[in-house]
């Protein structure tokens, strides 16, 4: 790693920029202009986000708060747990632990810095972590392995059996940094009593682990508070998803990012509820007026991202969709599978509910919710088994009236690269033109965003979608 990179605390660098962004949100035009001179590469991102009005401003503020919490955690006596986007951080908040969601941080580095997370991505490889591993974790992880982030107290994640590459990153970190690790393990099936029981038993064990290493006991009242907040958040997400079904959809493309970005770091916190409220209110106003959420006002295509998005500098991916009149119909990251969702018809067995009656019902609720987080729900088993990726994607495509499918991931994703070709064939057979992106969502050196955009453009033109 370059010596100058090692001079700065990674979390502080990101947090300081976010702090700037959150202040820009309330600044005058002159103040914004002056501020942007000092953060030229971040200015594009703030411009795109703030272009969405209050939801954008709220999003930047919660990101800023997230880093503030992280940077002050140890001073305030809180423990820091590294985790993954497939894991609901709500249990961390219930135990007064600050979560570090590696993938969110790697994505932010990719969108905020011209150099992305490149130095950190490479640093892991210098230590022996494979270069073929998933960049989503490898980016931020490089900083923590180098001792450039806040000190990690323990590690919790949930991907063994679902995404071994992901699980391996956390196992490597635990071994390298000599930190305690608990990994929830999910069976290959979903929707049966047997797997639900396994989810709960494993989760209970994990709570004991977290209590031990956080020094805090899970309180019934605090867990109820968190779950009641999640209940509100799920209802708001359901509202947003309902509006996403409208043609044209009044939901802007970037709301997808706001939705899951907030959920992966602030699920169960009131700040995320406020963000969702702002998004619902703004989309509802557009819906009442029959407006599209796209800036051009003209929705030409409805695209479903069957996996993840692309985290190029600024918000180039979302801006590109918007500029081309392509509405973002969500992806694997933005769906939550609460039993009140508009798309659960036919997928009932694979949803979760929230029951705050007592500690047991709450633990079951949070365990089952966690088991329906992105990836761990949809790609745990063979792609064409009940409740899995194919069935889910087809159900969602129908509900949201999508015109095409786009697969984007990272070369590190053994799991989806192992089945994307059969999956894409099925999608085409069902009438959905499907585009497989061969870039790396978190590493622009694999394929530049410009090249990726050119391929997207080609797909939409060749398939007669634009």
């Amino acid at each position, binding site marked *: 790693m370059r010596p100058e990179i090692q001079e700065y605390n990674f979390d502080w660098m990101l947090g300081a920029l976010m702090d700037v962004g959150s202040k820009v949100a309330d600044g005058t035009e002159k103040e914004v202009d002056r501020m942007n001179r000092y953060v030229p590469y971040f200015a594009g991102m703030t411009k795109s986000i703030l272009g969405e009005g209050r939801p954008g401003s709220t999003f930047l503020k919660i990101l800023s708060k997230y880093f503030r919490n992280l940077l002050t955690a140890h001073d305030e006596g809180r423990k820091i747990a590294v985790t993954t986007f497939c894991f609901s951080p709500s249990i961390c908040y219930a135990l007064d632990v600050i979560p570090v969601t590696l993938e969110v941080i790697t994505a932010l580095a990719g969108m905020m810095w011209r150099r992305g997370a490149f130095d950190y991505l490479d640093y892991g490889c210098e*230590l022996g972590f494979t270069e073929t*591993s998933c960049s989503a974790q490898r980016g931020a992880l490089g900083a923590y392995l180098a001792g450039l982030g806040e000190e990690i107290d323990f590690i919790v994640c949930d991907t063994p*059996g679902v995404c071994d590459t992901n699980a391996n990153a956390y*196992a490597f970190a635990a071994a390298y940094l000599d930190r305690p690790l608990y990994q929830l393990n999910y069976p*290959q099936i979903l929707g049966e009593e047997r797997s639900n029981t396994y989810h709960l038993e494993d989760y209970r*064990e994990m709570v004991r682990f977290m209590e031990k290493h956080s020094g805090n006991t899970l309180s019934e009242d605090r867990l109820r508070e968190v779950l009641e907040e999640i209940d509100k958040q799920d209802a708001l997400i359901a509202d947003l998803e309902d509006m996403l079904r409208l043609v044209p959809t009044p939901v802007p493309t970037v709301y997808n990012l706001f939705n899951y970005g907030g959920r992966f770091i602030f699920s169960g916190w009131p700040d995320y509820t406020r963000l969702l409220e702002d998004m619902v209110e703004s989309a509802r106003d557009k819906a009442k007026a029959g407006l599209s959420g796209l800036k051009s006002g003209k929705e030409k295509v409805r695209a479903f991202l069957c996996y993840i998005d692309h985290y190029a500098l600024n918000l180039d991916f979302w801006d590109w969709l918007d500029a081309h009149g392509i509405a973002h119909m969500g992806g694997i990251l933005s769906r939550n599978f609460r039993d009140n969702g508009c798309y659960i018809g036919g997928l009932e067995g694979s949803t979760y509910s929230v029951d705050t009656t007592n500690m047991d019902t709450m633990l079951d609720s949070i365990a089952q919710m966690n088991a329906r987080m992105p990836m761990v729900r949809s790609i745990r088993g063979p792609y064409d088994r009940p409740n899995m990726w194919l069935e889910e994607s087809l159900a969602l495509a129908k509900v949201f009236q999508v015109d095409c499918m786009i697969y984007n991931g990272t070369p590190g994703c*053994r799991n989806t*690269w*192992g089945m994307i070709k*059969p999956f894409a064939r099925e999608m085409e057979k069902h009438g959905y033109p499907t585009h497989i992106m061969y870039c790396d969502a978190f590493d622009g050196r694999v394929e530049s965003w410009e090249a990726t955009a050119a391929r997207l453009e080609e797909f939409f033109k060749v398939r007669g979608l634009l």
Partner: protein
Amino acid sequence: MKEIFYDAATRVASQPIIDWKASGRKVVGYSCSYVPAEIFHAVGLLPVRLRGIETRSMEIGDAYFGPYICSFPKCILQLAGEGKFSFLDGAIITPGCDSMRRLDDCWRKAGEDYEGIVPGYFYYFDVPHKTAPHGMNWFIQEIKNLISSVEDHFGVSITKDKLQESIRVYNRARRLLKQIEDLRSSRDVPISGTDAFAVTVAGTVMPREEYTMRLGELIEGLNKHPGPNQRGKKRLMVIGSISDDIELIKLIEDSTQAVVVAENLCFGVRYEGNEISEDGDPIEALARGYLGESTCPRMFGKYKARLRALKEIIERANVEGVVMQNIRFCDLHGSENGLFERDLEAIGMPCLKLEREYGPLVETGRVKMRLDAFLERMS
């Protein structure tokens, strides 16, 4: 004598399998060492480990798997698509790792294009990633489900008595393999690493009774007439990604400066080294034996236990250097090799990290050059 083992270890449709089929009996392939072979043996089915040797091209494997996938399952799919597994009456796929578990999806999809390549019995066996009580219970239930499924499909009855007898038969060979490991640990090393590895790999495809008998004869022969004295050569150990490739070990030993005295490989004695309890409930015994010993990096969070096991082998076999190979895109072994390298080099054990492709040794020149440099460093 060794020819029998070499035939089984280097040919997909080896003579024992051909003979077995010719006698009207059935064969079931399995993809991972977590599948208890005793289940099939108990009812006269021949369990054979699925392998990707003899692959000469990859157009079928590449057509169904994406580009960033380990070449081992691709090779298996390639052979399946070419009809090389036509002797299989059944196949068991497990979530050994992400690449391997997608063999299930891709093989079935390829079956839509290549008629008859999916065996009549095709089963997905869910192996958990933890040995905690709930993980063990899950695995026990999975074994029970597998047994029921085999019984239904093949019209057989897998009783506890039959299972217990199969465990005893399998343990006999395990004990003999342990004797070979002890011989390899001795100063004179009466058997080359290449021969020993061929013997071990052969055990994954040969009928167990015949294998055990041949193994006994081999050990008797080695005790009476040891092979050429290997003293003075560098004593190496090979670890890492799945490998059933005799040529890889041969390449190391061809240098004439080195002898492979131990492996810690999925096809090696890593699993065969653990005897299954012959007492109590045989299903629980199989579960504890196959899942309980966490030697594969798929069992996350057990790095320290694996390092300890590695050090024990190093000490027992007087290993002087460790070759850590991993197939490209095998992040589990690749990353763990990085940790092993850090911790073993710290105690003065020379390590060589080697990334390679599974299949024909197309990279022989590069691998050889690195091995030579490694041996030079050790001397």
